[in-house]
């Protein structure tokens, strides 16, 4: 990890949260593999995906933690919120209950991440218009109230990219301090410096986690 040039300048850590069955893993799969997974199994604990994107000419590696939705797994998944630069909060537009639970997910996200964490709201399954149970306007209002951005699921790419743009913007205008512990962002200059999460004792030299 310590040696060699990086083909990206930053690492952004994301988490995907929301009720079970809203399509968190499918969103991740769609974003990283550009494929829809029809028989997507439930997630137990956490799973992980990565992709390199480009924002304003900078290559950014997204490290995305996909979490289990069932309530009982929160005891495990909560420890993954720490140090997330972006949180994608997902609900299913065809199931109102998943929308109603957003405030609880938001509370977790706010409490367990840092104040600069960019939280995006995603209404998934927008292809199932006939079964729609939550209107876009309603969600948009919720998102505005909570400083999130609402997004319908067919723009998966945009959801991930817009979050990254917002994070990058926060870095540019200085509101996100890269040296702060748990900023969820690692800068990767040509000569790697110490990992940002200095509260951890790496088990091996150069461990960047």
């Amino acid at each position: 990890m310590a040696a060699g040039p990086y083909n990206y300048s930053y690492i952004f850590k994301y988490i995907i949260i929301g009720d079970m069955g809203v399509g968190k893993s499918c969103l991740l799969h769609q974003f990283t593999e550009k494929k829809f997974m029809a028989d997507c199994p439930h997630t137990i604990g956490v799973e992980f995906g990565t992709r390199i994107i480009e924002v304003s000419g900078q290559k950014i590696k997204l490290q995305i933690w996909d979490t289990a939705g069932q309530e009982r797994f929160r005891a495990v998944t909560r420890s993954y919120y720490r140090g997330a630069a972006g949180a994608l909060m997902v609900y299913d537009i065809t199931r109102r209950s998943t929308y109603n639970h957003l405030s609880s997910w938001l509370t977790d996200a706010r409490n367990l991440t840092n104040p600069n964490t960019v939280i995006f709201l995603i209404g998934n399954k927008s292809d199932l218009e006939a079964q729609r149970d939550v209107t876009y306007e309603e969600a948009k209002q919720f998102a505005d109230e909570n400083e999130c951005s609402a997004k319908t699921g067919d723009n998966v790419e945009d959801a991930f990219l817009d979050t990254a743009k917002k994070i990058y913007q926060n870095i540019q205008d200085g509101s996100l301090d890269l040296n702060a512990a748990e900023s969820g962002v690692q800068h990767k200059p040509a000569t790697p410096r110490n990992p940002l999460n200095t509260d951890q004792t790496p088990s091996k030299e150069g461990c960047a986690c």
Partner: protein
Amino acid sequence: MVHTDGLSLKKKTSRIKKVLSSDNVDPAKLKEFAISRGGLLNDEIRKQAWPKLLNVNVDDIPKKPDAEVLKGHRDYNQVVLDVNRTLKRFPPVDLIMRVLVNRPELHYYQGYHDICVTFLLVVGEDLAFALVDTLSLNHLRDFMDSNMDRTKHMLNYLYPIIVGTVFCLSWLITWYGHVLNDLRHIVRLYDFFIACHPLMPIYLAAAIVLYREEEILSNECEMCVLHGLLSKIPDNLPFEQLISKAGDLFLQYPPPDLANEAVLTFRKKRYGLDTLQIP
């Protein structure tokens, strides 16, 4: 095909059948067969041997409740949702609901259906109900609390052997049913787990990680990379060798020894002294 314990497949089959056909089946003998190379060999034997191993009376299986009763359970909708996602061809919904209705104190968890579907495929619904009902009160009991505290504690047992444990949560609570593709591998492991201590899936996890040591250490030391690498089990693992290794580890580091370590690990985590934290 000759097995390490000197028994050919044919010989082992006939020996198991002989034990099964006796009036008083010796459970210790059956356990030996379930653990030793090849396990219980085929589903025909499993149908007879699994009930004996779990001390289930196949002639006394409670009648299936009416559909309304099953549908009226608090977890019915979630079970249907989970099952419909992946198991359309062999939906274990009724099986799961029968256990949950029968045992109101047990809580459904995502992953439970991975176990149930295996039993459904091997022994059919009625017998699967009797077996899973018994397992849920024994091997799986800690996973079925209202919360995951005891499950998390079980994961702590792995700390003395390696670091970081969430990658194998699904291995533990689904007995590897969630992560393995080949049903033959899964049922072989189930022979082993049914015959052993409830913590045996943890020992197998350790055996798998140790087996892949070189591959794992040659990767980037980055939590996310390691998580991805560790959590995906290759399909071509030598399961017989790993089962034997897990058995060795169990003898070498029996649960009471690890329990002390697990408490230490818990305290370390609690007071922030853990050396490798989740990012």
